[in-house]
């Protein structure tokens, strides 16, 4: 095989692969992306208007955690001190999911406007709160917002 055709073959193979990768990437990006929303955003637009995955950040409202009737599910409300979003999660949450502390839940809204979370994230240690939780509080309260809702301490 000649140099020229060797190079052509190489470029052809790389081109086909790139085209495949770009196609996959675009399909993947359109299906797997979750946009962040604060509880106030959701209240403004209506929970049922979100068809795709969303990420909701904020504090877990104090006194909102419960385990439902049969104890299999965990339910709680995420608040940005102005509005709240009800969340239901089938599973055991990470250790740092505590009332009054920052949390991020990712999932889809059901017909009643409850977020059915597929993932619940908390901070990894005592020093930080998840970025989205912080952003929600900041958006709701403006630049001088505090990181608590007055009824529970948050770090």
């Amino acid at each position: 095989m000649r140099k020229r055709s060797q190079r052509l073959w190489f470029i052809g193979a790389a081109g086909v692969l790139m085209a495949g990768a770009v196609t996959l990437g675009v399909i993947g990006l359109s299906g797997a992306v979750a946009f962040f929303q604060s509880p106030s955003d959701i209240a403004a637009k209506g929970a049922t208007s979100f068809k795709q995955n969303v990420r909701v950040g904020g504090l877990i409202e104090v006194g909102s955690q419960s385990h439902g009737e049969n104890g299999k599910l965990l339910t709680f409300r995420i608040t940005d001190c102005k509005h709240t979003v009800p969340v239901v999660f089938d599973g055991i949450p990470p250790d740092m999911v505590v009332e009054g502390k920052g949390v991020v839940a990712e999932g889809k809204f059901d017909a009643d406007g409850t977020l059915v979370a597929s993932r619940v994230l908390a901070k990894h240690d005592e020093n930080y709160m998840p970025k989205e939780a912080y952003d929600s509080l900041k958006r709701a309260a403006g630049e001088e917002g505090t990181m608590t809702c007055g009824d529970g301490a948050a770090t």
Partner: protein
Amino acid sequence: MIIELGHLLAFLALGAAAGQSFLGLTRNGEAARRLAVATAMFTALSMLTLIISFVRLDFSVALVAAHSHSQKPLLYKIAGAWGNHEGSMLLWCLIMSAYGALAALFMREGKLRDRALGVQGLLTVGSFLYLLFVSSPFMRLIDPPFDGAGLNPLLQDPAVALHPPFLYMGYVGMSFVFSMAAAGLINGEIDREWARRTRPWALGAWSFLTIGIALGAIWAYYELGWGGWWFWDPVENASFMPWLVAAALVHSLIVTEKRGGMASWTVFLAVLAFCLSLLGTFLVRSGVLTSVHAFAVDPARGTILLIGLGIAGGAALALFAWRAPTLKAGPEFDPVSREGALVLNNLFLSVSSALVLVGTVTPMVLQWLGEAKMISPEAASMSIGEPYFQLTLAPMVAFLLLFMPLAQAAPWRKAEVGPLMKWLLPSAVVAILAAIGAMALGGWGVFLGYGVLVGVWAIFGVGQDLVRRAGAGGFKRFIKLPLTVWGMAIAHMGMGLFVIGATVETAARTEQTFPLSPGQSAEMSGWKFEFQGVTLVDGPNYVATRADILATHDGRTELLQPEQRSYPVSEMGTTEVAIRKTLGGDMYVALGDQLRDQANVWRLRIAHHPLIDWVFGGAGLIALGGFMSLAARLRRRAPTNAETTATEPVASSADKTGAGVGASA
């Protein structure tokens, strides 16, 4: 006093590294060699002073006060020295200078070694400047506290104590590969000899990186309490990108070494691997991410890391542009040949790395654009999750494995597909049967069948290739196959095992939550779990709520004790799961929270993770295979007289068997 000594030693190391780089780049270097060893020794002693400060709990050292505590087991007092940003940067410097010293001691003398030591010296100088002036671990507190703040409890774990050293031996090992590439470009000699001498470094660094990543995954699996081992978290992707590129590099180096081909591509990969390591460090350390790795959320440090990445990458690419016209193209080859197969391998691996890069960086770029008010905040804050990575990478890995046995069996220059396929027919049949079997057992998921198909095909195909190489010599010849062949085969089989394990575990894992009060029991997957209640247990630096669970399976009963630990020092809790290993997978029991409205009812999370050990074992075999290839190279490079006569015939017959099936006349 001792930490001041460490500080001084770090400055000495900086000076020695500066001398090393100057002498290595300008003269022929006995002096550069000595200075490289001195740099490593100064750095090692400096690290030692920091470790001593951590073990002795010298809380007047700011870093010790912030990350250690008197009630901490010794292992974690030591590991605490690198379980934080500043200490880990000192570890980075130590490993970087150690690679320089290794090269100084063991590489054959010549211009390549001297220039590589020079470039490595420059990288070491850069690292020390960052360490000493931006993130110094040697700072004192004027008013030392009575006790320290403690290490993040999640990190108080054996696997994660070893995770940073291994990961850094991989990441920073890429620095020497980079130095070799730069040295080769400076000398204008990117040839077969260059590839032969670079490959051991690439193999070593890549194998260490494999182990480092695997340790992190194992830790996530049992410490985070939800049984996942890979999250597609940006910090994980940060280590996966250089891994993919380095995997491509160890393969393209073969083509450059054996055939003299792909030289410019190989150099490019060598530069890219280290740049991605730096990018990974930037992502993890700059505070653009919030995670257990983001010790210090300090954008200034991130900016400086980014500048360093720009300088190193820019300089190397400029060198590359300058020398690229002089790089020789290798001899011609047919698309269907071992060279062709290795080109495909490189395409798939580097495109995979690019796909991971896109998925990792897109949310950060959008966020940055949003903060700069260039796009609306709604569009700026998004995340890209597992489905993207699964969808894009699964086909890449599948193709990679489909070609693997063909690549191993194909001869150089020109092969023929027909005879190869015919010869591999048994493996294909086994793979198809296995895939059908797996789908029948585990539900008819396409993903599952696909993964098992390519994994089994790879393992059996590689096995068939080994048998062919042994030829008529039978078992005796089989075990005497060269170490390089064994290394390749073990790494490739490890890849097959990993893919089977990962797809089966992902497709067939089951988990359920059971609210139980003492005396009640739950049943799952043929196991019965009787909850006997919880007790409070005191640990060295934590208080644990421990559940007693009697697990019964096949008439045998044993006690499982998952725990919830609470660390008063850091006001944090961790989940310690109980894992019962079986041949087919793990039974994974985690103690969850207590029910709010009913007293003494605890939620247990019970999961079955089939073939999870294949995931970690496969990764281990990949690393083992890499180290075996490395060992083979080291042995061949410095043969004693006796060894020369012993290994020669083996090597030459390996070349003969390497001619392969389907070779054209």
